[in-house]
């Protein structure tokens, strides 16, 4: 239980710092800064818990005591980091599906036609910001008026292509 408690506590503290930071000033490379905060809390937090294990006791629970428990805590914490990073991509950018559902829900009983749904959702809203994201995250670069994949972008494209092929699925999107 101490692994669950201290793992959740560390993650909760990291989350609070992230929210405060974001509300003061939004970093340009959000994902990178977020990863530094979360992994920083895991490393520094685990070190502090290990160093002061005998002095720390919250709700009668002492911090993890051996390497197997710290490994378990790291696995738990990293799984939370991954889950939050994936959720964060939906926080960072508006999902078209959610926008459509919200629009239809706002229209209530009168409903919406396909043309009405398309209003305010053109290429400048749905496609161009995502291309800009690829440039910001250094997955693509502009050369002679054309967009090209960087090595990082190529690795990502190959990963998803491999997986989609494995599932015999189309290009998606």
């Amino acid at each position, binding site marked *: *239980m101490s692994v*669950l408690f201290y793992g959740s506590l560390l993650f909760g503290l990291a989350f609070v710092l992230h*929210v405060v930071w*974001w509300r003061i000033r*939004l970093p340009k490379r959000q994902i990178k800064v977020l990863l530094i905060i979360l992994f920083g809390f895991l490393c520094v937090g685990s070190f502090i818990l290990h160093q002061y294990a005998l002095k720390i006791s919250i709700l009668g629970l002492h911090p993890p005591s*051996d390497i*197997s428990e710290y*490994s*378990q805590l790291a*696995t*738990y914490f990293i*799984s939370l980091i*991954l*889950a939050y990073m*994936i*959720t*964060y991509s939906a*926080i*960072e950018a*508006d*999902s*078209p*599906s*959610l926008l*459509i*559902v*919200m629009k*239809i*829900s706002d229209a209530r009983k*009168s409903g*919406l*036609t396909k043309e009405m749904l*398309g209003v305010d*959702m*053109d*290429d400048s*809203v*749905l*496609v161009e*910001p*995502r*291309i800009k994201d*690829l440039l910001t995250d250094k*997955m*693509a670069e502009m*050369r002679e008026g054309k*967009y*090209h*994949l960087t090595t990082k*972008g190529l690795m*990502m*494209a190959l990963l*998803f*292509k491999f*997986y989609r092929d*494995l*599932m015999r*699925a189309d290009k*998606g*999107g």
Partner: protein
Amino acid sequence: MAEDLSILHFAHVICPLLGLLINATSQVLLCRHERGFGLLESIFAGFICGLIMVILIEVAYYCAIPSSIAHLLGLLCICIITYGTLSYCYFHFVNLGETARRVRILRELYDSKDGLSMEEILNRYNANDIIEKRIRRLLFNGQIILKDGRYFPGNSTVLLMNKAMVIMKIVVLGKRSEFD
């Protein structure tokens, strides 16, 4: 003997990872199955297969090193939460390949060795395609309903998810949308 036991203690670290491996393997196999499992069906079935593996490993650990039921439940609890979180990541990874616009644009760039201009990207993938695909998907899953040429709200699950996401956006970013 003490060394054997300490190796055995790492079972709790390996357990959720092994569960995830079983989850992903069974999901891909079901997706490739000739009978044609749907994506959501295969993800759900994969999750159950992995969960069974996690529980079996923990029960086997309990049989090898008997301790109190409370201790077993504590270990089972953290293993299931970790496994659930990893499965959530896997679900989103599969979903990213299915729906993410960035991934689709990466694929288009990958398929064009000489690169693509903005115009060429928009010829291959544009707002109309995105809306069409999503409407089809939402109709198929019953999340919206088509009646007399107009779309109406369907089941409320996706609306609740949407509301939760808006709350998260307000908490983290202080705004409801990236365009606010």
